[in-house]
Every structure is written in structure tokens, then in C-alpha cells.
């Protein structure tokens, strides 16, 4: 069953067709990988769906609702959340507060001026539990700006996860971390996403990560969708291997 679908989605930057009449679907409960070379339009597509960019034309439907013209916070309320390619955190807040803010926002508590945030034990307990799931519990009191790159990547995902989204976009969750750290980070993320029954879309360049963790792969090239299929189908797709690797599937 389709959770999200786009219809003829278009975004041009001058002569550059970043997203060119894209029909893209995400099915309920899957872990989908969105791949393609640099400039293929992956991040632009996610930016359009999450509300960071406005579409020139086309439609975005989420759970049957047209969200094309909704604001970012309305889309978050619908259940769409995202992390970022370059880590986007609240660096002067503690690791715990980074998570707590998502929970306060989700529960509509950020308008409260006259209650102490630290005294909301329900939010604090939930934030601590999220940190525990991501292996960051020991860093709870540390400012986010003081974490290592791998920890920051995990926290970036955890901040989005704490919104309890129905659909989570993860933009290159392992970029900028060492090869040794990639697998543990992806293991944590995929375990949490699957146990939380969250549908996830991962933009990733590392093909080992893509083929190991995804249920379905969508390949983008020059603003359009080049191929869509299971990891095995994509691995043996000549058009994909020629475009991405410059070789034939059998080579």
C-alpha cells in the first residue's frame, strides 16, 4: 500500500532540471534506498517532499492527503520527518535537550512559557529512552557540539525519530564517518526503524550499505527516475550499472 506518492513533480533551477516530472512512491513499512550520482536530484526530491523547497508543478500525496502546498510544520504534523546530509543539530543544547525539543514540539508543549522543561518527567524519560536506543545515553548531559561525528550523525537521526514520524527521510546517514563506523550506525538505525514500524527512505552513496539494508531501490539520474526495483533487480539492471558505474551488470 502506498504511503506517499508524487505525481509529475517538477523543480527547475534555471536551466537545470533538478526534479523532472517524477512519479515516486513509497510503500508502507518498507526501507527504500534512493540512489544516484551527485546532482541526480535525490536531495531535491526529498527537499520537495519535506517542504524545504516548493514544487514548480506536480502533486505530493501523503496517506491520501494532498500536502503539496502545506508548510513544513504541517507536513511534520502529518508524519513526515527528515534528517540532513550535513548534520543539523542544536549545538549549544545538551544531547538530551536536542531530543526533548522534538518531543515537546510533537506534543504541542513548546508554547509553554511558565513550566520548567527539565521538570517534565514524561518527556525527559522518553528522551532518555530514545538516547538509549541510539546508544547515546552516556552523552545525555553533553552539549551536542561536543559529540564525535559518528555520534552527531546518530543524534541527527534520533532528533527526527523522536517526532515519531510515519515516514522518515535519512539523507546520507553515514556520510562523513569512517568506514568502520558505517555498519554500526546503519545497524542501529535500521533496527530502530524496523522495530518502530517506521517507513524509511535512505539517500546513500555507499552501495554496500544500500544493498545490505534496503527492501527496494529507486535510482535517479538527471532529475528523473531511471530504475525502481528490489536490490537483486537493480544489481542486474544494465541501464543502472552503465549509468552509475560505466560498466555492464555482468562485467
Amino acid at each position, binding site marked *: 500500500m502506498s504511503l506517499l506518492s508524487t505525481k509529475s513533480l517538477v523543480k527547475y533551477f534555471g536551466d537545470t532540471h533538478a526534479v523532472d516530472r517524477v512519479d515516486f512512491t513509497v510503500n508502507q513499512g518498507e526501507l527504500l534506498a534512493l540512489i544516484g550520482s551527485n546532482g541526480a536530484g535525490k536531495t531535491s526530491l526529498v527537499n520537495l517532499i*519535506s517542504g*524545504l523547497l516548493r514544487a514548480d508543478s506536480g502533486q505530493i500525496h501523503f496517506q491520501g492527503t494532498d500536502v503539496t502546498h502545506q508548510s*513544513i*510544520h504541517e507536513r*511534520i*504534523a502529518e508524519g513526515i*520527518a*527528515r534528517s*540532513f546530509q550535513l548534520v*543539523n*543539530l*542544536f*549545538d*549549544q*543544547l*545538551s544531547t538530551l*535537550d536536542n531530543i*526533548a*525539543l*522534538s518531543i*515537546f*514540539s*510533537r506534543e504541542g*508543549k*513548546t*508554547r*509553554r*512559557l*511558565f*513550566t*520548567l*522543561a*527539565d521538570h*517534565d518527567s514524561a518527556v525527559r524519560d522518553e528522551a532518555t529512552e530514545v538516547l538509549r536506543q541510539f546508544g547515546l545515553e552516556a552523552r545525555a*548531559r553533553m*552539549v551536542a557540539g561536543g559529540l564525535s561525528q559518528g555520534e552527531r550523525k546518530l543524534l541527527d537521526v534520533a*532528533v*527526527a525519530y523522536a*517526532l515519531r514520524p510515519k515516514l522518515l527521510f535519512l539523507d546520507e546517514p553515514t556520510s562523513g564517518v569512517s568506514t568502520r563506523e558505517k555498519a554500526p550506525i546503519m545497524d542501529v538505525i535500521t533496527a530502530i526503524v524496523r522495530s518502530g514500524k517506521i517507513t524509511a527512505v535512505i539517500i546513500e552513496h555507499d552501495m554496500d550499505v544500500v544493498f545490505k539494508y534496503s527492501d527496494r531501490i529507486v535510482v535517479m539520474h538527471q532529475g528523473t527516475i531511471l530504475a525502481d526495483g528490489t536490490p537483486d533487480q537493480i544489481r542486474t539492471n544494465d541501464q543502472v550499472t552503465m549509468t552509475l558505474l560505466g560498466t555492464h551488470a555482468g562485467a
Partner: protein
Amino acid sequence: MIPVPPRRVLVYAIPIALLLFVLPSVVSPYEVTQLSYGLIFAIAALGFNLLLGYTGLLSFGHSAYFGMGAYGVAFMVKYLKISSMEALIVGGVVAATAVAALFGFLCVRYTRIFFGILTLALSQVLWSLAFKFFWVTGGTDGLRVPTPSLLGVGMAPGQDKMAFLAHRYYYYVLVIFLVGVAVMWVIVHSPFGKALQAIRDNETRAEFVGVQVRRYRYMAFLVSGVYTGLAGALWAPLNGLTTPDILVWTFSGEIVFFTVLGGFQTFAGPIVGAVVFNYLKTFAVGYTVYWQMFLGGVLVVLVLALPAGIVGTASRLIDRLRKAA
């Protein structure tokens, strides 16, 4: 900013509050009056720092809200013959909040230098109105603000005005200051305060956790205007005269100075900065005609040598000593 536990805050706050209560019995009335000015400026600085330190917006127009608080009081005294300080405070704060609501609506659409310049420009519109509409505002002569009644009790017949200001008015200001500090402390440690700090740190990510950035900036702007207006309302009777000088952009610069001097990255910094600045300025004005040069020198030294301000530097030193021990 890692939150400081309330118990640790009280360890510092209670002795300081007690000291402020006993000071009038050990220092001269003149010193007490100076302290009243310092506490009033500290209320303005607290409001200002909600924008700078917690929301990341540098306003160069806070003289507008301080001035509206002061002129609101002066107008009520002159045209409505009101002498109750409580009514004057309400009037002053309402006037300042109304202006903050209007200016904030325009300014929070912008950030960085555009926000700063727009706040400065709008505050100068008010200054020019106060300057030109002299038949209403008294022009450069200003409007006299006599000593008001406090909680329904006026100055006793024959009582010395200085004694009144250095005793009853001081305690009146002190209680409002302490309540203002407590309320602001709760605000910056509330979920709303966390949302403001998130906006300061990373506006885009704040949007993506569901914080409506412009709306929250506007709320912060309003609260900031209320505090600065309250300070202006308390200042008018203490000064006895409200003139357009209080609306000039250089006074906005002084509010920035208070905050940088004390340290805008700490809660107590603006309070300490306001009190210290008031003494520095009073000393400099009495000592030399080139007092602006003296204060300018202090600001240069401060930015170069103590970028974290007095409180920021002191707390870093204390942390280092703790770690070394």
C-alpha cells in the same frame, strides 16, 4: 547552554537578594539610587537578552520600548493626572507592548544585519516623533514625572524626595526586579525557552522539528518588549523627567553594552553588566568630560580580552578551578 540546576542557582541568588535588601542601611542614599538605576537597566537587559542570547537576534532598537514605557508613564501623569505607580506601570507596559507588537511584526521576518538595522530605523521614527511633536511630548524639554504613590501610599508631607527614592522606591524596584528575574529564569528554562535556543542554534532544523520559527521569534520579541517597557516605566519616576534622549539609538547601544559587558551567553550576565555599566558611566561622567572615550575604551578591551563578558569569564574560571581541584 547547559541548564544549571535550580538548587545551585538558589545558592547564589538568595545571598545576593538578601544583600540587596540590607544595602540601604549600610550605603548612602545616593549609592542606593544608583543601584535602583542599575536594577532597572538590568530588567531592560534581561528582556533584551531574551532576543540576543536566547533567540540569536541583535536588536539596535530597544530604546523604543524603554522610551515608550517612560513616555507612557509621563503621558498618564500629565494628561490623566494619575499618580498610582501600579497604574502607571500597567500603562507604560501596555504602550511599550503595543509598539513591540507592531515593530516585531515587521522585524521578525528578517535576521542578522537586516533585523538590527530595521529595529534601529523604527526606533528612530519614535525618537523623531517625540522630538518634533513638542506640544504633546514637551520636545527636548521633556515631561516632568513627579514622585508617584506606591501601593496607594504617597510621599509623606515634608518627606525628602531623595530619602523616598533611596528607601521605599528602591524596595519597590527591588521586588519587581526579583520577580522579573525569577519569571525570566522560568521562561528561558521552559519548553518555549528551549525552542528559542533551538532557533538561535539552527533555524532550519528548528523548522524541521515543528517549531514555527517566525511565530516564536515574535513571541520572544513581545516578551522582550514587555520587560524593556517595564524598565522604562520604573525609570521615569526615578529620573523625574522623560526626554527624547531615552529614545535615541545611542541608548539602544547602551543596552547592547550592558549585555556584552556582563556576558550574553549567561543568564546573569546582562544583570551584572547593567549594574556595572551604570556605575562605570556615573564614575566616568563625574571624572572626565571625555567619558564617552573612556566607555569606548572599556568596550574595546572587553571585546578583545573578555569576549564572554564578566560573568562568562568568571564562570569559566570557576569551572577551571573546580576541575583543577
